[in-house]
């Protein structure tokens, strides 16, 4: 059997694949965080909780209403987006003039509320989400087995990240958004409805988290704790990549997943801590993050 540094190549590729799948989720979540941060200047602590809510929406749609994965892929993010509209319109809006730390604290409180609600009604143990028929089985790539669903997750998340990047960096709508970030008052003077844009940006950002939740449902157990488990890793990813950068957050997210996979092969004990060590190093060498600009 072929080996690299004493590790069978199959095991290595398998872990890299797993890492790529995890990385896709990290990328989508940190992308949403970066979009929200760019426009609202807040760190959305509720992001992990809303990812969890997305997964639960998918589970509820399937188990209570018999609505399948494909519709959940559209309906659940819309549902999460609507929650986002509610949060932005009724709460975050009133904090714009204050220190940005209050936004972090508020969304932290919301994360507790959401997690508490789902724990109260569904307990802490996970619920299984049945994989759609079409994704069962694996592709045989000669050198490794690739589960179909995992391939789909990686491809879909890459496509979504690319579309988001394109919209923000290359279209007129994206130009409005970026201008609104730099100087909201000036953009308002041009007759653009900035408050509406802010609401929709927040809704879109958390909608991405909801979508990631639906995609995660068949892979991981649907559990109230899934959000808080992932959010802090995503925060570390965002610190490494630099807050404002869309592309940076995607690349760092994917890289983070791959590094996690590699560490699992070579030194499994460190696989949970390696991201934080990288973060510490990046902070020492480039405090603004790999792709960030010092403001």
């Amino acid at each position: 059997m072929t080996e690299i540094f004493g590790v069978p190549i199959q095991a290595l590729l398998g872990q890299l694949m797993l890492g790529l799948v995890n990385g896709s989720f990290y990328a989508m979540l940190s992308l949403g965080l970066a979009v929200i941060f760019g426009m609202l200047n807040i760190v959305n602590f509720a992001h992990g909780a809303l990812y969890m809510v997305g997964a639960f929406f998918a589970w509820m749609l399937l188990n209570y209403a018999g609505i399948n994965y494909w519709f959940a892929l559209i309906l659940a993010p819309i549902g999460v987006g609507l929650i986002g509209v509610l949060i932005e319109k009724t709460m975050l809006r009133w904090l714009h003039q204050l220190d940005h730390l209050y936004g972090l604290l508020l969304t932290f409180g919301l994360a507790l509320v959401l997690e508490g609600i789902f724990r109260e009604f569904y307990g802490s143990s996970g619920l299984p989400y049945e994989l759609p028929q079409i994704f069962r089985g694996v592709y045989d790539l000669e050198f490794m087995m690739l589960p179909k669903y995992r391939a789909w997750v990686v491809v879909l998340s890459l496509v979504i990240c690319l579309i988001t990047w394109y919209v923000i960096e290359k279209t007129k709508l994206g130009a409005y958004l970026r201008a609104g970030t730099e100087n909201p008052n000036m953009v308002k003077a041009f007759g653009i409805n900035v408050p509406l844009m802010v609401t929709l940006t927040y809704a879109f950002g958390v909608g991405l988290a909801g979508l990631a939740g639906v995609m995660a449902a068949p892979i991981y157990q649907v559990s109230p704790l899934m959000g808080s488990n992932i959010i802090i890793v995503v925060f570390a990813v965002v610190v490494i990549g630099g807050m404002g950068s869309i592309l940076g957050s995607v690349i760092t997210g994917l890289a983070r997943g791959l590094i996690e996979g590699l560490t699992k092969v070579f030194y499994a004990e460190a696989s949970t801590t390696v991201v934080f060590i990288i973060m510490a190093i990046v902070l020492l060498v480039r405090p603004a993050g790999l792709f960030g600009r010092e403001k």
Partner: protein
Amino acid sequence: MNKTVMYALLLAGLVVAPFVGYPIFLMTCLCFALFASAFNLLIGFTGLLSFGHAMFFGFAAYVSGHAAKEWGLSPELAVLAGTLSATVIGWVVGVLAVRRQGIYFAMVTLALSQMIYFFCVQAPFTYAEDGIQSIPRGKLFGVIDMGNDVAMYYFVLAIFLIGFALIHRTIHSPFGQVLKSIRENEPRALSLGYDVDRYKLVAFVISASLAGLAGATKSLALGLATLTDVSWQMSGEVVLMTLLGGMGTILGPTLGAGIIIAMQNYLADLGSWVLIIMGVTFVVCVLSFRRGIVGEIEHRFGKK
């Protein structure tokens, strides 16, 4: 009301408290009050939001528990060992974290505390999910038996008062004045020639040490050190205590800690509702009650 009279009354209340209330509950309150006050030194008086203070509290709890149980150290030495460990971690984390401001500072501290958390999950001496259990309280200075709850209470009270006095002293020293100027206007403090990063680092280390002191004491008082103590939820709890009581007030964190601990104690049967109630309290505080209870009282009745 005269301030000295008020402090004297509070102190008298604390001294008679174990004969009126339940000592274990009171000890928990005092430990968390010290923890929140230490946290407040950063957020309230330096303007730094640390979202990872549980790492100092929890890690020190493990170290003092380990020292008392495995090494058989007397309680004052076990507490000292725990506090020192928090000081060391505080210095390392502080060096990294003060390089960033505002939201980034919060995220960096949060991430590093999660690293400590994962370390504690894997390190053998923490006993992972079980935690260190039935930690002996031992004999104070090798003489006084701390098995009695009332005796332990006075030990905890003494530690609380020392920590509290230290915080009070720090805030009212010239050093504390510089910290306040950093909170109000960092660029200005910088332009006046203060080495802002060093001031922040020292404040961070003091705060971390005192949070460690609180954690180390807690693990002896309750005989337990668990993963909950190092988790990020614990970091959130201490933020809530301080926010509810009043950021930047002397007594606010103590009051906030008392309220939250009482709430967790009396609502424990409600299960996850405690989490929901805490979340709602957070949201309400941030939206419409940012001064906190003590801050609001000072604002309404205090002298200008």
